[in-house]
């Protein structure tokens, strides 16, 4: 588990997760913990990386070529939002 501040924008949250995935950790899910997001990662063998991840609000169009891997509440810019995580297919 790791914490991501709920004060960050969705783009900043996405980049924080992408950086963590660059260390061979795969985003699994997220939960709300007070004003922050409590994010769950799966450890991959060092040197293995998950495919590209994107986050969008649930109201946004699905990115081309990506599959939905998670949907749920996240604190984004201080507000609770319904967010979808997408993974490059």
């Amino acid at each position, binding site marked *: *588990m*790791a*914490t*991501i*501040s709920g004060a*960050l924008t969705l783009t*900043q*949250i996405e*980049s*924080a*997760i*992408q*950086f*963590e995935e*660059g*260390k*061979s950790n795969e985003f*699994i*899910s*997220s*939960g709300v*913990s*007070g004003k922050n997001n*409590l*994010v*769950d*990662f799966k*450890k991959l*063998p*060092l*040197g293995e*990386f998950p495919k590209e991840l994107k986050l969008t609000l649930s109201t946004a169009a699905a990115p081309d070529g990506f599959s939905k891997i998670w949907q749920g509440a996240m604190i984004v810019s201080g507000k609770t939002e319904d967010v979808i995580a997408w993974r490059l297919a």
Partner: protein
Amino acid sequence: MNARGSFALVVIGTISGCALTSGADRQSLYNPPGIHPPTAVQSDANIPGQVPIAQYYAALKNAKDEAKGASEISDFVDKGIGLTSAYCLRWFQRLDEVQRRLDLQEKDFNVVRSLGTALLGIGKAIPNWVTGYGAVNTAYSGIVENFNEAVLAGPTTAKIKSQVLDMLQQSEITLRRDAPGLTFAQAYSRIELHTDTCTYSTVRDLLDSSLNATKATRDPKTGKITTESLQPASAAQIADAKTITTRVAVLTKDSTKRDEINRILKAIGAPKFDFTDFDKAASALASAHAGMKPDDTQKWKAALGI
């Protein structure tokens, strides 16, 4: 759990009050029921539709005067394993129910506090907990709120359940293998040890090991759980992270690279960088890499010669 332990749990629950569940409900949130409760509880063994407790006590009676290696003892072990599994699964089901109720009443302090009472109850019952309850109550509230956040209402509940059931299965395999060579007393003791796999303390141990793996920590005095805080990163830093990770993966698999790893550890400011053992050096590098933040990437690149 012995009779004194059961009594302690009841006392804890009773003295503190609970708005979340009734007294009877609350007891089921403690550890799964003890497999060897007091005699009075055994009298409920024939309640239909419940866990297979009647078969267990019948097997116990058949086995208790038998010699080592008797088939009755193996049957007793078999029934004990079945009863333990039933209790364990029902316990997790009850915890799931509590989680759903909390989802509805998340901001209700009284409910959270009441859950705290229940969680206090499912801790290992020792007399000191009863006598010390008043003194530690305030500090324990912190543990409960954080434990609730991290386990009961967090994304890890299913994982912990899965791990506990896996551990129970491993214990079962060993117990079944050993059963033919056990005396009744040994079998009785081993079943109690087997049931201890599915307890609050085991869940807490699992959480601790999970926290260790993710660099999160629990303050031993307050119980507060602190997880690593992730920072936003630029596109370049994300790309650098992958390059660095690939390089670290190669280094930590090459046992001839101990000295190079020590040099890198020193360059990135690791607290220890004079390992004589490759595995320890590699582990230290992997650990440092796990904590790498976006702002650290330039330092890592320089240390790795990238």
